């Protein structure tokens, strides 16, 4: 039982990542594909936070707890997750802007119909 609990959060991250990959590969709509990429990215949040967790620990913020009185979770991976979220949001915005231009120039957002190059 405990061995399952020790890997389960990592397996959840892998599952979320593979779900996003499946969606990306079978997508019929570019906006849907951007959403799938966001799903892939959110698996990295799960992974990072799972790596940093410590049993019975609280948030690494010392404005209301005395330093050393309780164990705290790993702040380094939490900061990495914050970076991850910011970069994910900006990439999503940029990709959606690209999709908007594709929809305007080609009149479709189905990746299979975007075959020929146009100047």
């Amino acid at each position, binding site marked *: 039982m405990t061995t399952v609990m020790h890997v389960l959060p990592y*397996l959840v991250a892998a599952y979320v990542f593979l779900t996003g990959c499946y969606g990306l*590969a079978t997508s019929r709509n570019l906006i849907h594909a951007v959403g799938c990429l966001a799903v892939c990215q959110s698996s990295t949040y799960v992974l990072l936070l799972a790596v940093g967790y410590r049993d019975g620990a609280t948030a690494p913020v010392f*404005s209301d707890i005395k330093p050393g009185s309780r164990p705290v979770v790993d702040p380094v991976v939490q900061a990495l997750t*914050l*970076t991850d979220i910011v*970069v994910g949001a900006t990439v999503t915005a940029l990709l959606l*802007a690209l999709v908007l231009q594709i929809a*305007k120039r080609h009149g479709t957002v189905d990746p299979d119909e975007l075959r020929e190059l146009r100047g």
Partner: protein
Amino acid sequence: MKRLRLALLALGGAGLAALLVAACLDLPGFGGRSHPYGTRAVHASLTRRAANTIASVNFDQRAYDTLGEMSILFAAVLGCVVLLRQARDEHRAQPQPAEVARPVRRYALIVLPVALVTGLYVIAHGQLSPGGGFQGGVVAATALHLLYLGADYRALERIRPLAVYETSDALAVSSYLVLGLAGVLAGTAFLANTLLPYGTFNTLSSGGTVPLLNAAIGIEVASAVVVLLANFLDQAVEIEEEHGS
């Protein structure tokens, strides 16, 4: 063709899944006690009197990485502005004011100042409590857009002169750089937190340069979100394709 593609996907997916499971089984157990980097980061943060260790990691120990992150945000906003500009075969239509249900209008106008102050509070207390420039910036920027829900697009445009937000975005990015260079001029290293006194633990001015860098990020994120949303909203509300072209 399509079935071949799916079969190939299934094969690759199964291989990737097997590799990921094997990697997961080899990771240190979930909830373990040994976090050497975390322990050291907490120690460094406490010696520099920043109560929120995550803010200390972001704006002191990894301030250089945050500079990169901020540049990504700035570049993405720049890219969106270029991609979403008004094209030659498009024109701007004047959006017509629409009827807003009274409860929606009342609620939006009451919540707007509360949300705006909350955003500024979260930015200002970044080094003390959970939150900081990134989170508070998004709260403050989205608070402004309650005006679009509660009134109409023209009301939002009046309180949101885009040029001001674009300029403050760029100014915030350069102030982060200038704060980093100030360390070099003072004889230490780029973005090293040795410039200012560390102050009293758990007060607004504690943590050396952390609150300043945090404020710069807060302004940058708030302006960037406003500019991004403005460009997408312009596409949805104002910009129309020329008919018969």
